[in-house]
């Protein structure tokens, strides 16, 4: 026990102090703006219109507060004491509190306020002179107050508000935060919600809970949010258990967001990726090998349902019956589809390699690499050009178009493996290129705002422990293990996928009674999915829910909900997978 606790304590300290190479999140003015960076003594960060070195941050505990000092040496970050910060940022301190009580009935109000921009006698130019002469932000704020004709007539509340506003502008406060799933989620949700599929922090938390993410879980993910969900699960598991981020063979997953976290090697080494077809194959081959009738029915149903789901969007329950299973067992996949899968896998490996290479290196010259990868893809694809693909996806695509009226751009290449079949090489290549660019933008690098300070040290670091790199390809053994045991939970965050097709393919990969949760920005696809899962008895405990979050300002006599709130953050469909065999057979026919 004592050993354990000392271990946990040392572990805990790893994440509390900024060290050389740490990924950090700079929270500017309490959530107004966010900037990601990597702390190196040599790296610079752009804050507003000045550039500062990150060196002063190293060795400070997370949660430390800084402000930009503009003395003659040039702008640099200076740590501010907590108490000073508290006094300036929170106005619900006791001394103010005394005044507040009076303030409500104070006779000061805005009846004499004339909003003609004459109240402030200090001009823009004079302020810039002050700044040039090295006046601190606080000094400027003081000068502004002294020169404001209307300040004294304001109520105490609006005086505080005025001060806070000016403070934010002239003396921004920067809090160094440890990037965690929650803080990253909040930062992205504020800055660029589209990059994380409009996933709000409460929804993220809900997904992790509903999927029962906890130590020793084997979590399967379909993560099209730049690897953010994968990383969040990784953080929650802390190296206990395994994570598999899966994808369709024609698609390269971007797990770029993993780079934002300060993962321990232990956590990183638990995160894998594997193409979906491999997982499906592993699951069905295991059951065939065992010769267990019951299990094989379960295993094959995946691929069977797979084909049906694309041919007939509403595959009947009978499709899962074991008699058919055995017949079909030999010809699980179309020959053409098999080849496509294999080729796809090869391409994928190559592409992901080159993509990852480009990610690891600095972003210079990166588009060229992507293009190369895309060309590679198109070449190999042309080799297979003569193969006739089942024209299944038209149905899927069309129905998707009707239901959610997504943009065509989004639809292309998103549907399923077979979508490739309908696309001409050029548009596919083009699409892929675009997609890759998009995807990489989601990642750590390449986004203008998210300041990245790429250095060689980082890529060295990455190549050193390649065997532990987060998001590496799962070994055959690993895949076989998942095939044998099934995953213990599933999280889907694929805003452009049809949830039902995802369920039909992926639920059979779970062990029975495993929880799954699907996040989707639209409700209707989830409602339809829920209906089918219920009708075909593929899952129970189905729940379609919409999370709602409201933040409050709590200040003496000024408590109210925040003016701005997020009006939607998508929907979650959750449920528990079933033991397929037992749902298909009537009780008396089974011998257990």
């Amino acid at each position: 026990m004592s050993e354990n606790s000392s271990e946990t304590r040392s572990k805990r300290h790893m994440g509390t102090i900024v060290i050389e190479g740490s990924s950090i999140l700079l929270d500017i003015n309490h959530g107004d703006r966010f900037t990601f960076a990597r702390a190196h003594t040599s790296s610079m960060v752009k804050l507003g219109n000045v550039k500062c070195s990150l060196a002063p941050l190293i060795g400070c505990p997370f949660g430390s507060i800084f402000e930009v000092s503009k003395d003659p040496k040039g702008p640099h970050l200076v740590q501010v004491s907590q108490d000073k910060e508290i006094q300036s940022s929170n106005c619900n301190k006791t001394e103010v509190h005394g005044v507040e009580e009076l303030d409500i009935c104070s006779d000061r109000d805005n009846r004499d306020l004339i909003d003609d921009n004459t109240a402030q006698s200090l001009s823009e130019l004079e302020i810039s002179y002050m700044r040039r002469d090295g006046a601190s932000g606080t000094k400027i704020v003081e000068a502004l107050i002294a020169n404001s004709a209307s300040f004294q007539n304001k109520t105490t509340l609006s005086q505080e508000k005025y001060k806070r506003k000016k403070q934010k502008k002239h003396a921004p406060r920067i809090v160094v935060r440890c990037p965690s799933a929650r803080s990253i989620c909040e930062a992205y949700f504020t800055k660029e919600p589209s990059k994380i599929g409009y996933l709000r922090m409460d929804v993220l938390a809900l997904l992790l809970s509903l999927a029962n993410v906890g130590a020793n879980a084997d979590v399967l993910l379909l993560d099209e949010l730049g690897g953010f969900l994968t990383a969040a699960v990784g953080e929650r598991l802390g190296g206990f258990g395994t994570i598999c981020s899966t994808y369709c063979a024609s698609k390269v997953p971007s797990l770029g967001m993993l780079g934002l976290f300060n993962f321990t090697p232990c956590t990183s080494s638990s995160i894998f990726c594997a193409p979906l077809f491999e997982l499906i194959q592993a699951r069905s081959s295991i059951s065939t090998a065992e010769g267990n009738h019951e299990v094989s029915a379960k295993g094959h149903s995946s691929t069977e349902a797979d084909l049906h789901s694309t041919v007939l969007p509403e595959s009947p329950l009978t499709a899962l019956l074991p008699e058919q299973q055995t017949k079909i067992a030999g010809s699980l996949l179309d020959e053409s589809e098999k080849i496509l899968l294999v080729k796809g896998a090869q391409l994928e490996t190559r592409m992901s390699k080159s993509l990852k290479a480009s990610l690891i290196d600095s972003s210079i010259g990166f588009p060229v690499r992507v293009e190369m990868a895309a060309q590679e893809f198109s070449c190999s694809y042309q080799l297979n050009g003569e193969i006739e693909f089942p024209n299944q996806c038209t149905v899927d695509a069309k129905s998707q178009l009707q239901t959610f009226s997504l943009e065509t751009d989004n639809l292309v290449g998103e549907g399923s493996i077979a979508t490739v079949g309908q696309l001409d090489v050029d548009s596919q290549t083009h699409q892929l290129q675009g997609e890759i660019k998009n995807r990489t933008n989601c990642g750590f690098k390449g986004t203008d705002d998210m300041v990245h300070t790429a250095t060689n040290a980082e890529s060295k670091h990455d190549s050193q422990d390649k065997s532990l790199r987060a998001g590496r390809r799962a070994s055959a053994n690993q895949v076989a293990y998942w095939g044998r045991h099934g995953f213990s939970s599933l999280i889907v965050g694929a805003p452009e996928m049809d949830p039902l097709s995802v369920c039909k393919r992926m639920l059979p990969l779970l062990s029975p009674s495993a929880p799954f949760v699907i996040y989707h920005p639209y409700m209707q696809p989830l409602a339809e999915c829920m209906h089918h899962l219920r009708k075909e008895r593929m899952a129970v405990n189905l729940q379609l829910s919409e999370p709602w979050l409201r933040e409050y300002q709590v200040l003496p006599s000024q408590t109210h909900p925040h003016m701005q709130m997020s009006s939607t953050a998508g929907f979650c469909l959750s449920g528990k997978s079933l033991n397929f065999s037992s749902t298909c057979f009537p009780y008396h026919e089974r011998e257990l």
Partner: protein
Amino acid sequence: MLGVPRDQRTESAECLIREGDVVIVYERHDRMKQATVCKGKEFQNRFGVFPYCDWIGKPFGSRVVGKKGIGFVYLLKPTPELWTLVLSHRTQILYVADISFVVGFLEIGPGKVVLESGTGSGSLTTSLARSIAPLGHVYSFDFHELRAEAAREDFKRNGLGSLVTVAVRDIQGQGFPEDLVGRADAVFLDLPQPWLVIPHLGRYLEGNVPLCSFSPCIEQVQRTCEALTSNHFTDIRTFEVLLRSYDVRTQTFGSLSMTGVKEEIAAENLSQVRKLSGQKRGRDGLKQTEPLVMQGHVLTTEEVTNGKECIPALSSSSDIGLSKNPENTGVERNSSERIVARPYPETRGHTGFLTFARQGSNLN
């Protein structure tokens, strides 16, 4: 309830139901119960009688049929979320929306040490335990002896016994025990007067450690925030979180595609309808001004422009659109079902406010 480390797993054995296991019996989407498998006994509900010995050896997720083939239930593996739905309420409990948000915001992960007060029915504690497993620990306190004992018993049954320590203690009056000073990674308070304990929390929280306080009333929140501010906590934020559940079903809708009326009739009807809608506005039982306009609209757009369709003769012009009966209005039942979703008519609108704060990190 917890995952088994890989090296301790047998071939898929952890999914098979064994004697002594806690099972969530899923009866219907809104009806679940907990049961402990015990040979020689039976599980009874309104759907049937289920001998436990039938369950042993079956995988979790199986459907089992009752004696004489009457009734069936699904047997699910317990998770903290399912447990929240089946546990016996000894107090008000927290539900999944709040629980997940607390765990997420406090950034609770494996190896963390969490202090909780009070234990209550153990709904949150179960989720905390899942998150800190296998190396961390939850120290949970409740001033009610019997409640603490019952919670302890629940944790043991769910295999969480080694991860949770439940102690009887009045945290508001006595504060957290001395031996936990400097050990906590997160603190959760569900107390009537959290501001009494906040001044003493600093020593227990080391570094930039977060805390959360749950209070149903805004006045409690107000005082809590004041206490937090005056005790040098930072990042004080208050949230309200809800989960709206949707009812998904199929629904057939009547469509207004009338067939069989010629252009002029349609046009005539339309004018009549408009007149009538004006006249009938005040009459009881016929507050249908809006649908009338809609029907009028449909007449114009569909029938009038699309003259080849035939509308069956309408008995009298005054019938049009005024009756609620679809047959009379020429409204045809569209046979195709649609999948629709709407929130359940009633929902829990508020559970409480969650206030978070961090212990400020000191300058060196």
